[in-house]
């Protein structure tokens, strides 16, 4: 009332404030509204304008042509009998249309209301994808036994991502985790999840398992995980996918398309990551058995050797040194014997030689009556011609000698004239 005129807002400014407040409110960004259609107009541009009402209130709504086309992927076709009086379940966000000064519901999905309309859409899509073989058991791949790098495609701010990281690190403290942040509900969530899965499949990232999930929520909040595009992206993923959506009781089509279905994000981490302390003790046990088996092997050899040795004759062969000593003794006595023999033989030869020597001795010849005649210069006379008359000759006898003079020289022994 007392405001200075300069501080007053223009109508446009007020509307802008309202628009910002309404469109910035998280609780108005992603809503499902049930109501009855009235004032339905299908404009030539393809956009549909209508109101939703119940007993107490009414809200303007618009379904743009593009949103109507895209809905087919997520929820199946629009209700055929779309028009005034139809009770519907509409999904979208609340925005403000400044020109009319009106807030309205910008619808991106429109389903027939009533119990089970979402459920019906779910069953239809499920039957279609099943017929294509997307859920076939032989498409399921085993998860790596020990993942080197785990991908987590989920909202980066929810409880789900913290649960997965906590459980994964408890089981495998050294694991590498890559969070791929995506919208998990509301407009744009399906496209965002598809993009996140495509990124997580890039080979250079080296992920070998992906957990795709989110925490619990209503059927509508989990709806992105029933989106046909998301389900197909999961089925096409090169990297094995663990679906970990909501709680135990929540079932989405992603659960059917994934390689493994986990009831919750924490359970997903338990399925994707092995319990490393348990594995380590398994490896330790195997190592122990390995060493024990080798020890037993060696022990058995030793025992076999002992058995064989026990079967050898009681008199054992002499050890080499004793053997050598004995050989030495033996050689020594053989040497002594040989030496003694040789000595005896030598003695024998000596005496026989001595005998023969004696037989040849000139003394023995002289004893038999022969004599040796020598000239004074010592030369032995063998022929009469060796001496001349008048020479002095020494005659040697067996005992003693004679000093003689040559008186005449004869011719020979037999006809020699007797010298008297």
């Amino acid at each position, binding site marked *: 009332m007392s405001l200075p005129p300069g501080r007053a807002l223009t109508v446009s400014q007020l509307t802008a404030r309202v628009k910002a407040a309404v469109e910035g409110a998280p609780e108005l960004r992603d809503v499902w509204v049930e109501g009855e259609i009235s004032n339905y107009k299908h404009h030539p541009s393809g956009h549909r304008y209508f109101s939703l009402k119940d007993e107490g209130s009414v809200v303007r709504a618009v379904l743009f042509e593009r949103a109507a086309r895209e809905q087919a992927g997520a929820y199946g076709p629009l209700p055929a009998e779309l028009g005034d009086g139809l009770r519907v379940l509409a999904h979208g966000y609340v925005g403000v249309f400044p020109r009319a000064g009106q807030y309205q519901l910008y619808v991106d999905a429109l389903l027939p209301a009533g119990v089970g309309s979402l459920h019906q859409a779910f069953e239809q899509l499920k039957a279609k994808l099943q017929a294509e073989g997307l859920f076939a058991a032989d498409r399921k791949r085993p998860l790596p*036994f020990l993942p080197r*790098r785990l991908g987590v495609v989920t909202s980066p701010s929810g409880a789900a991502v913290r649960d997965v990281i906590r459980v994964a690190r408890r089981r495998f403290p050294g*694991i590498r985790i890559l969070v791929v942040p995506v919208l998990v509900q509301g407009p744009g969530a399906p496209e965002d999840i598809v993009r996140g899965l495509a990124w997580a499949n890039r080979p250079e*990232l080296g992920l070998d398992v992906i957990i795709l999930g989110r925490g619990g929520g209503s059927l509508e909040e989990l709806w992105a995980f029933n989106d046909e595009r998301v389900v197909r992206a999961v089925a096409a993923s090169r990297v094995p996918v663990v679906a970990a959506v909501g709680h135990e009781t929540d079932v989405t089509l992603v659960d059917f398309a994934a390689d493994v279905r986990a009831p919750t994000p924490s359970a997903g981490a338990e399925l994707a990551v092995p319990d*490393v302390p348990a594995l380590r003790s398994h*490896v330790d046990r195997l*190592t122990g058995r390995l060493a024990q088996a080798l020890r037993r092997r060696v022990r058995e050899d030793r025992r076999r050797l002992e058995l064989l040795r026990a079967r050898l004759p009681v008199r054992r062969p002499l050890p080499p040194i004793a053997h050598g000593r004995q050989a030495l003794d033996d050689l020594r006595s053989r040497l002594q014997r040989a030496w003694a023999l040789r000595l005896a033989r030598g003695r024998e030869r000596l005496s026989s030689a001595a005998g023969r020597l004696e037989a040849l001795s000139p003394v023995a010849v002289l004893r038999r009556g022969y004599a040796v005649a020598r000239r004074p210069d010592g030369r032995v006379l063998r022929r009469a011609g060796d001496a001349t008359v008048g020479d002095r000759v020494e005659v040697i006898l067996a005992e003693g000698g004679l000093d003689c003079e040559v008186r005449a020289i004869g011719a020979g022994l037999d006809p020699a004239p007797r010298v008297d």
Partner: protein
Amino acid sequence: MERPVGEAPEPRFEEAIAELEAVVARLEGGDLDLEEALRLFQRGMELARLCARQLDSAEKRVEMLIAEAGGEPVVKPFEDGEGARA
């Protein structure tokens, strides 16, 4: 995973432990000459070391893949829940 070209890739844990189990079973089964037993033992110890090394991996990293201005994803450290909003 980024290893130089030409280097034989390290066997995966499950392959290594399956071979280790087979080696232990053969060695325990006996009927091997000593040389073969020793060879198996050495192979077994090698596999056990390989398994232990993989379990002892100490990367301990949590990272986040976020879009750069050009739309290409880049890997950044992840601060427990304080990252980008949904």
